[in-house]
C-alpha cells in the first residue's frame, strides 16, 4: 500500500465509521474491501492479470463461503445482497474501462465486459458444483485446503511461479522469454489463503460459527489488513462487525495515534533504513566487519519498522470502522529469549501455525511413544519454523531461516529446563544483568537469522556471517 492508498483508506474508513450503521456498514465495508482488492493489486506484466488476480481472490472467497456455510444459506436476503454487492463491484471496476480513458482502479485497462460476464458465469457454475459436492462429500473441504496450499506453493516458489508464468504466456500467446517469477504477484494471497484455510479447517472440526457472506468476505479481504495482515480469526472479526458501532471522538483519536505511529515507522524509519539495509548487493560490497554489523542492524530494524508500521496502520484504520484487529508485534527485540521473541513477532501468524500445525503435529507425534520427549520437541519446533519459513517463500534461504529459529527455540527450551533447576539467581542486580544479556543475545540471534531472510542464496548468507565474525 502506498501513501495515496493509505490516505484514501483512512478517509473512507472515517466516512463509514461516522455515518454507516448496522447492515449498511457491513455492506459498505464489503464493497470497499472488494474494490481495494483491485486497487491495491500491483502491476503484473501479463495482460489484464491485475484484474483477473483480484477477481480470483474474490472467487475463492465466495466459493469457500458456499462450501462452509449451511445448506441454503445463500438464499437469505442478506447473502443475496452481499453476492450482488460483490458482483456489482467487480463489474463496476470493469466498467471503468468504458468510462475513463486511462485505468483508474487497476494498473492496466480491465478486460472487455463480455469476458468478465463469462468469468462470473463460469464462477457461478464452479460454485454451484462445489456447493453440491461439499454437501455430499466431506473430502471437498480437504480438497479445498489442498488446492489453496498448492496455489500458495506455486506463488511462493520462484521455480513454480516461473513455470506457471510460462504456461500462462503460452496460453495467451505472449513471449515466454520475458517470463518471470514476479509475473504472478498476487496481492495478499499469503493472508487470504491462511484465513480461508482457518475457516475450512474450523468447519471440518465443527468449530466454525455461521457467518453471512458479507461478514465472511469482508473478513477475508478486509481492506486495511489485505496486504500485510494481521491474520484475524473469523468469529472474532464477525463479532466486531455485528456490534453496533458509532465512531466517537475518543476512538478517532486512538485510531489516529496508531495510524500516525504506523506511518512514521513505515515511511520515515523503515524507508530511511532501507537505504542502508542488508541486501544481495551490499552483501558483497561491504568491506569491513564493523560496517557489516551496521548494515545488518539496519535491516533488523527496517524489517521490524516496515512490518509493524503497516500493522499499526491496519489496526488504526480498522479501528475507525469498529474492528479491533489483533496485535501482531509487542516489542519483539526487547524479549529476553527466543520463545518470547516468537510470542511477540508476527503474533497472528505464529498463533495460526500453533493452532493448525504445531498442536495437531504434537498430538500426532505423541502417539509414537518410542520417540524421546526431546526429539518430539525438536521435531515439533523444527517443523513449525520450517513451515513459517516456507510461508515467506519456498527458497532454501527461507528454509534455513526457519531451521535457524527452530533450532534456537529448541536450544532455548532445553537450556531453560536445565537452568530452572540448577541455576538460581537471587541478586536483583545479577537478575537485571542476566535479563539484559538475554535481550542482547536474543536480539543478535534474531538479527543473524535475518541474514538468511534478507539474502537470496545460502552462499552469500554464509559469506556475510563469516564477515560478521571477521573470518573473511
Amino acid at each position: 500500500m502506498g501513501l495515496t492508498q493509505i490516505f484514501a483508506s483512512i478517509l473512507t474508513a472515517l466516512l463509514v465509521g461516522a455515518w454507516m450503521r448496522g447492515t449498511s456498514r457491513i455492506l459498505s465495508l464489503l464493497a470497499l474491501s472488494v474494490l481495494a482488492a483491485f486497487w491495491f493489486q500491483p502491476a503484473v506484466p501479463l495482460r489484464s492479470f491485475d484484474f483477473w488476480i483480484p477477481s480470483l481472490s474474490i472467487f475463492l472467497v465466495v466459493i469457500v463461503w458456499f462450501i462452509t456455510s449451511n445448506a441454503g444459506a445463500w438464499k437469505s436476503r442478506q447473502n443475496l445482497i452481499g453476492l450482488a454487492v460483490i458482483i456489482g463491484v467487480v463489474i463496476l471496476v470493469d466498467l471503468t474501462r468504458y468510462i475513463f480513458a486511462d485505468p483508474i482502479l487497476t494498473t492496466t485497462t480491465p478486460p472487455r465486459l463480455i469476458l468478465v460476464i463469462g468469468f462470473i458465469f463460469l464462477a457461478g457454475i464452479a460454485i454451484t458444483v462445489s456447493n453440491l459436492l461439499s454437501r455430499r462429500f466431506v473430502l471437498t473441504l480437504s480438497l479445498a485446503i489442498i488446492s489453496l496450499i498448492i496455489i500458495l506453493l506455486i506463488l511462493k516458489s520462484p521455480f513454480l511461479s516461473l513455470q506457471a508464468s510460462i504456461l500462462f504466456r503460452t496460453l495467451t500467446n505472449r513471449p515466454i522469454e520475458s517470463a518471470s517469477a514476479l509475473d504472478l504477484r498476487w496481492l495478499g494471497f499469503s493472508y487470504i489463503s491462511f484465513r480461508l484455510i482457518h475457516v475450512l479447517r474450523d468447519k471440518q472440526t465443527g468449530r466454525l460459527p455461521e457467518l453471512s457472506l458479507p461478514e465472511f468476505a469482508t473478513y477475508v479481504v478486509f481492506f486495511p489488513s489485505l496486504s500485510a495482515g494481521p491474520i484475524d480469526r473469523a468469529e472474532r472479526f464477525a463479532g466486531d462487525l455485528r456490534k453496533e458501532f458509532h465512531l466517537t471522538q475518543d476512538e478517532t483519536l486512538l485510531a489516529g495515534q496508531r495510524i500516525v505511529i504506523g506511518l512514521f515507522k513505515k515511511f520515515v524509519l523503515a524507508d530511511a533504513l532501507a537505504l542502508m539495509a542488508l541486501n544481495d548487493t551490499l552483501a558483497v560490497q561491504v568491506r569491513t566487519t564493523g560496517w557489516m554489523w551496521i548494515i545488518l542492524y539496519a535491516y533488523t530494524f527496517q524489517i521490524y519498522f516496515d512490518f509493524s508500521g503497516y500493522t499499526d496502520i491496519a489496526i488504526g484504520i480498522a479501528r475507525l470502522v469498529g474492528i479491533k484487529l489483533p496485535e501482531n508485534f509487542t516489542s519483539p527485540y526487547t524479549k529476553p529469549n527466543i520463545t518470547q521473541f516468537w510470542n511477540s513477532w508476527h503474533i497472528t501468524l505464529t498463533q495460526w501455525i500453533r493452532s493448525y500445525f504445531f498442536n495437531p503435529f504434537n498430538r500426532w507425534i505423541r502417539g509414537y511413544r518410542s520417540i524421546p520427549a526431546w526429539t518430539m520437541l525438536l521435531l515439533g519446533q523444527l517443523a513449525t519454523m520450517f513451515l513459517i519459513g516456507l510461508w515467506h517463500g519456498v527458497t532454501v534461504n527461507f528454509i534455513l531461516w526457519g531451521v535457524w529459529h527452530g533450532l534456537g527455540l529448541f536450544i532455548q527450551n532445553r537450556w531453560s529446563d536445565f537452568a530452572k533447576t540448577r541455576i538460581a539467581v537471587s541478586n536483583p542486580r545479577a537478575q537485571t544483568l542476566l535479563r539484559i544479556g538475554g535481550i542482547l543475545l536474543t536480539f543478535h540471534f534474531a538479527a543473524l537469522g535475518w541474514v538468511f531472510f534478507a539474502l537470496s542464496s545460502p552462499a552469500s548468507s554464509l559469506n556475510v556471517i563469516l564477515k560478521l565474525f571477521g573470518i573473511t
Partner: protein
Amino acid sequence: MPTPRLFPVLLKATLLLVIFNFLFILTSGFPLGKLSLYNKVFPGRERFPFGENQRGYNLSLFNLDAMFAAHVLVGAPKADDEFRVILIGDSSVWGTLLTPEENLAGQLNSQNISACNKNVHAYNLGYPYISLLQELMILDEALKYQPDMVVWLTTLESFPKEKQFGAPLVANSPERVKELITNYQLPLNPNDPALNHPTTWDETFVNRRKDLANLIRLQLYGVPWSATGIDQFYPENYERAQTDFEADDSFYDIKQNKPLREQLSLDILDAGLHATNIPIVLVNEPILVSNGKNSDIRYNFFYPRWAYDEFRVMLSEYTAQQNIPYLDLWNLVPMDEFTNSGVHLTPFGESLLAEQVGDVIKNFCE
C-alpha cells in the same frame, strides 16, 4: 489520565503545523546544507554527490553547501607538506563510469608526485552538467579551502551562452549566481527567468520538503558509502559513445561567419582565471575524435569540426595573451578509450590524461 478531546487536538496540531511551516521561512538564509555527518561520522566523499540510481548510494542535489560539506576536501586539514591541487570540470573530471581511484584525481594521487617539495594531493571538484558558470561557482567556493593550484579542465560544450543558466545547480542557486555576477562583474542578468527565484511561499517547510528529504538522504547514504566506498552505479553494459553522425555541422546557434569569441561565454572563464592569485592551469580536455560516418564534418556527437577548430584557436590565443598556463589535450586519447560519451574516458584514457596533467603539476615550481 483523561483522554484528550479530538477537535482541540486536531486544532492544535493544525495550528502548530501552520506556525512551524511559516517559522521555517526564517531558516531560508541559514545554510542548512552545511550541517553534515560527512567528515565527522562518515568519511568525506571523494567527489561531489551526484547520481539518480539508488544502487550508487548517491544522489543529485542542488545545494552547493551540502555538496561541499559532504566532500573530503572540507574535512581534510591541510598538512604543511601538502601541495593541494583542486580539479575543476565537468562529468569527465567527476568520473562517470570510473571509480574514485580511476578518475583523474585518483590517478594523480596514485602517482605520488611532489611539487614545490611538497606532496601533491588532488581533489576532485568536477561536477556533471557542462556549464562554465557552474564551474566558476564551484571554483569560487573551493578557493576557501587553501588550494596551491587549480587545474581547470574545460571543453567547448561549456561555453555557449545559452548553457550557462541551464545547469540545475546554477538554476537552483540564484543568490550565489547574483553574488558571482556582482563579484566578478559578469555580463549576465541576475533576474534571468532560467533561474529559480524562490518566493516566500516556496521557502515554507511544506514546499522545501523535497530539498530537506534530499539532505537527509545524502546523510543516510553516508552509511553504504562508508561501508563500501562505492558512490556510483556501474552498469555492466552501456551504450558506447556515438561515432557515426548525421551530416550536420551546426553547433547551438553559433554562426560561422561571426567571431566565435563574441558568441561564447569566454568572459566567465576569464573571470574565473583571474579570480585569484593561485595559479590556475587551463586544460582543453580530450575529446573523442571519430573516424566514423560524417567524421569529416563532426569530431563527435558534440562538435562540428569547424566550431571546435575555431574554439581551439580562440583558447590558444586567449591563454597566450593572458599568459595563462594552458594544455591543449584535445586529441590525446584514442577513440576506443572513450566510454559512453565523447568526453568520458576509460581508466586507460584517464591515465594518459593524468600523465600530462601530472607533469605540469610536478614541474610547476620549476
